[in-house]
């Protein structure tokens, strides 16, 4: 079965010289456990930015992390138990972690879940809002410490991942090049990038088009695909790349 695993509010800012794992790293460890235990295979993690608002308690950026996985149905309960224990034990002491695990094919009203995700990017929601919707849709939602407010972001993260048009993938791409220039075809064959696209014009690059790589090459979730966004290079000479990858500054809105 295909599932979405989404977590939120597991971390805190480092205090008293004690390092604390970020939510992204926690998601990575859950995904690793799924694969190490032979429960299934996992897809890359996406980060979803939620609303920044004075009425919302969050650590530093209020984002949730989500990944999709394929697992055997018999491993669903072991996975929920593992992830719940993991969040309870490994989250920061003053965090408010939430866990959402949704079986994609069983979400009766996917649009409701997606809408909840976008609501969480624009409005202050409550735990009750989250639990009510999860119950209606038959989605596992649980809290594992503190106020448990992370359930809101966890459910929202699953909705935004399901919607396929929000967030950026965790980690940066590592591509083999000689001079930071590479063809679109090689980008896609060396990584999990589905397409290379200029978002300003909507142009999807052909396999033979050259791209100049920056030092922080990241993909976004766009129409359900892992998309490497690029911008046109102003001065194009013969054999020069016509495109360059986004800078951090350009990526900040995703």
């Amino acid at each position, binding site marked *: 079965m295909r599932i979405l695993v989404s977590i939120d509010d597991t971390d805190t800012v480092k205090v008293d010289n004690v390092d604390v794992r*970020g939510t992204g790293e926690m998601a990575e460890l859950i995904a690793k456990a799924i694969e190490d235990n032979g429960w299934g295979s996992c897809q890359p993690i996406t980060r979803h930015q939620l609303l920044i608002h004075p009425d919302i308690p969050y650590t*530093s950026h*209020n984002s949730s992390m989500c990944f999709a996985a394929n697992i055997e149905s018999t491993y669903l309960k072991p996975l929920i138990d593992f992830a719940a224990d993991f969040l309870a034990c490994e989250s920061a002491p003053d965090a408010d972690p939430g866990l959402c695990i949704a079986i994609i094919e069983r979400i009766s009203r996917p649009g409701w879940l997606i809408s909840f995700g976008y609501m969480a990017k624009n409005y202050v929601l409550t735990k009750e809002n989250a639990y009510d919707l999860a119950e209606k849709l038959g989605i596992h939602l649980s809290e594992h410490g503190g106020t448990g407010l992370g359930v809101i972001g966890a459910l929202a993260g699953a909705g935004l991942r399901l919607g396929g048009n929000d967030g*950026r993938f965790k*980690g940066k791409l590592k591509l083999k090049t000689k001079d930071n220039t590479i063809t679109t075809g090689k980008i896609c064959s060396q990584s999990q990038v589905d397409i290379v696209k200029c978002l300003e014009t909507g142009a999807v690059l052909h396999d033979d088009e050259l791209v100049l790589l920056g030092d*922080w090459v990241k993909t976004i979730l766009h129409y359900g695909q892992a998309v490497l966004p690029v911008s046109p290079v102003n001065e194009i000479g013969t054999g020069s790349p016509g495109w360059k990858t986004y*800078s*951090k*500054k350009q990526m*900040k809105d995703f």
Partner: protein
Amino acid sequence: MLYTNGEGEFRGSKDDWDLAAQIAEKCVEFKADDEDEMVADEAVSCYNCRYRRWTVRSFVCLNKAGFIWTV
């Protein structure tokens, strides 16, 4: 002052890249955040620091020592 009093919100909003980099360069408490949370192209910038907490308009520094950077 680069930071306001009280909550210590950065006056440069979310788009004063130069100022955020200048302050971080001088701050002994700067600590790079998780790479996935970085937004500034300058490696050392308050915008990339683990101690910044985004607000609606800007950010606040959660490390009190960061407040020494006032001019």
